[in-house]
């Protein structure tokens, strides 16, 4: 999808159809998907908004902003549209993946694709403890609010700084305890896992059909 030429809009329509079919099959609520997919736009716009101004080509319009004269080109707008479409299709695919697959399964899959075990371990710890930390932050906020948090702005900043510091120290100590718990069960620095995902024939069929679908539009509309 990333390599598809920008002017080949039919390919993008085709890809969108594939993703749409899969999203419908996944039975996710459409509004939820739409809402989550909008998250990506600020990031893309932040990066890509300047492209129409810098790209050279036929001028679509020029404006005087204070001292500068800036002009927008057609080819630049075209690339911007293309970047947005690609980003949106990517985020739709990601939403599809992350809402239909448990993180534990996803990590096992990544492991089998050859991602180093240490990386998988880090990701799994992150996902396991992010909620524990969120709970801790919530409790700290409640404790702060019950002691009538208020006063001068500078004082508030100091309190928040202390909370961040406390959270850091608590997380660090928790890390130490987790490591001790791992050592107690024979951990020696080497990460071992059981191979528990099976590559079933259904996976092979899906993979093959999906690859064909990806290649097919490029071949006929190149």
């Amino acid at each position, binding site marked *: 999808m990333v390599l598809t030429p920008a002017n080949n809009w039919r390919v993008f329509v085709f890809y969108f159809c594939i993703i749409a079919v899969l999203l419908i099959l996944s039975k996710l609520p459409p509004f939820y998907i739409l809402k989550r997919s909008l998250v990506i736009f600020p990031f893309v716009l932040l990066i890509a908004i300047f492209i129409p101004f810098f790209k050279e080509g036929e001028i679509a319009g020029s404006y005087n902003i204070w001292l500068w004269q800036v002009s927008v080109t057609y080819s630049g707008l075209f690339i911007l549209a293309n970047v947005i479409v690609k980003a949106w299709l990517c985020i739709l695919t990601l939403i599809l993946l992350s809402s239909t697959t448990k993180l*534990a399964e996803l990590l096992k899959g990544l492991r089998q694709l050859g991602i180093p075990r240490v990386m998988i371990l880090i990701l799994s710890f992150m996902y*396991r403890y992010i909620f524990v930390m969120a709970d801790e932050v919530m409790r700290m906020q409640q404790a702060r609010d019950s002691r009538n948090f208020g006063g001068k702005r500078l004082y508030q900043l100091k309190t928040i700084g202390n909370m961040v510091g406390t959270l850091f120290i608590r997380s660090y100590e928790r890390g130490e*305890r987790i490591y*001790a718990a791992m050592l*107690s069960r024979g951990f020696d620095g080497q990460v071992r896992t059981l191979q528990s995902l099976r590559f079933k024939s259904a996976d092979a069929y899906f993979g093959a059909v999906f690859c064909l679908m990806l290649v097919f539009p490029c071949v006929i509309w190149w």
Partner: protein
Amino acid sequence: MNKVVEIRNLSFNYPDGHRGLKDVNLVVYPGENLAVIGPNGAGKSTLLLHLNGILRGNSTVKICGLIMEDKNLKEIRKKVGLVFQDPEDQLFSLSVFDDVAFGPVNMNYSEPEVRQRVTRALEWVGMGGYEQRSPHHLSFGEKKRIAIATVLSLDPEILVIDEPTSNLDPRSKWSLVELLQQFPMTKIIATHDLELVDALCHRTVVMDEGKVVADGDTETILGNTSLLKDHGLAPPNP
């Protein structure tokens, strides 16, 4: 008689200088249920961490005749199952299965054996069928049980538990006590829950300020009200 734990004159200071343990002597025989009681900060948890070499002091600690040194560490950690106070620390995987399997997988058991050990350990603590659940979504009592299963899967000869009944409601607490009573191995339990001590342990060690201040059978120690009061432990209800 063979001793499962033998500690002679163990002292330990934390890196920041404050005293953890001072001249601790402790001998535990096979099959004993030993309670280590004492107020907060008495050094109970510190002592437990010496039993499988997470911390090491200045003296020899022997577990089942094995001296605590690097080459024996793996064998010792197989024999000593240490359950931490906060199950949130003990359960660090994304599924209950992975957590209970962590020990056996580290011991390089074959896959069928790992699966069999996990199933057995979970059934032992009454949590069969929880394999695919996420530890984050369990109740506190369930987490405690699974935390115990994570060391039972290694078939330890000594079960060492830090504060097994803290934060449990009475029903969960007593069902956990019943569960612990069924385990045949040597148990060392750090707690300040005297009801638990009375129900489960035959022998009690009292610690305060890093020292062992009393060691005897549970009835005598729990009967010695002035001793308990001196060390910040309320006597059990008559």
